[in-house]
């Protein structure tokens, strides 16, 4: 079973550029058209199940807006956080 993860997007920084949407391997990201950030952008959010916490969205994010969490499973346990 793939690792389970999730992301937290900071509205102060996200500019809705969609680089993470295009880069996301499981394709679970999209802009939230129902919301606007204080700067007036539609922020990104998770739209369906399948986030693995791979952090590629955070790697391509030009605004360091994304915090990534991944569930520590038995198989993944030896991997140190922050890797």
């Amino acid at each position, binding site marked *: 079973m793939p690792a389970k993860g999730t992301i937290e997007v900071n509205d102060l920084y996200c500019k809705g550029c*969609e680089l993470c949407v295009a880069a996301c391997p499981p394709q679970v990201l999209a802009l939230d058209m129902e919301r606007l950030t204080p700067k007036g952008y539609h922020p990104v959010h998770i739209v369906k199940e399948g986030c693995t916490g791979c952090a590629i969205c955070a790697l391509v994010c030009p605004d360091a807006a994304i915090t*990534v969490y991944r569930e520590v499973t038995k198989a993944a346990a030896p991997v140190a956080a922050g890797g």
Partner: protein
Amino acid sequence: MATLMVPENLVYERPHSFTDAPTHYCPGCTHGVAHRLIAEVLEEMNLTERTIGVAPVGCAVFAYNYFDTDFVEAAHGRAPAMATGIKRCLPDHIVFTYQGDGDLASIGMGEIVHAAARGENITVIFINNANYGMTGGQMAPTTLPGMKTTSSPDGRDVETQGYPIRMAEMLATLDGAGYVVRRSLHDPANIRKAKKAIRTAFEVQERKLGFSMVELLSTCPSNWNLTPVESLKWLEEHMLPFYPLGDYKVAPAVAAAKI
């Protein structure tokens, strides 16, 4: 979902060597990625407290607002000269410049060439996005042949406007240069390689092995008139063939250090 968001599950968070300020860059501009990689490297190497950055003139003119390190602002193109002075006065500090192609390869050409020739122990992060971003997308020394910009609306004509300059290759010919490489920011694998190169460049400075420069191919969605995602594709298709990625100078002392 909420139960996942606990500290022990944290995989990635915003670097602590950033301030809380949101950047002024256009959405999707890879300047932000370059900033983030530098911030991550400074944090990993525990250098935040003794690093002095030198900001350029250009889009990155406000870089001093974003890094939680000491920073100064140089006159257009003069960042390597200013960094030279700072590094010579404060040799125990890590000094880096962050410059665009208009700043470094045009008005600042003299400063960068001589800083490299003198082997100044500074690190230069050079952003190559093939145009002058801040002033509205005019032709830069790095603009590709045939590329349309606001000051070359019919495409750069090399007969009258000359050829682009490959900075990494040029500086690599100088004996003072210790580590000169080119990387790109167009996909996750290349972003990881870029971060590794930035880390090596700072390690080179820390070990006093001479001048280090990382040239980063970068996008400019607003002035290229493309979406951020299309810009990455454009970079890959047009800039990579003209500006090949690679290590152009790894001085024997740097290679021996096995960083």
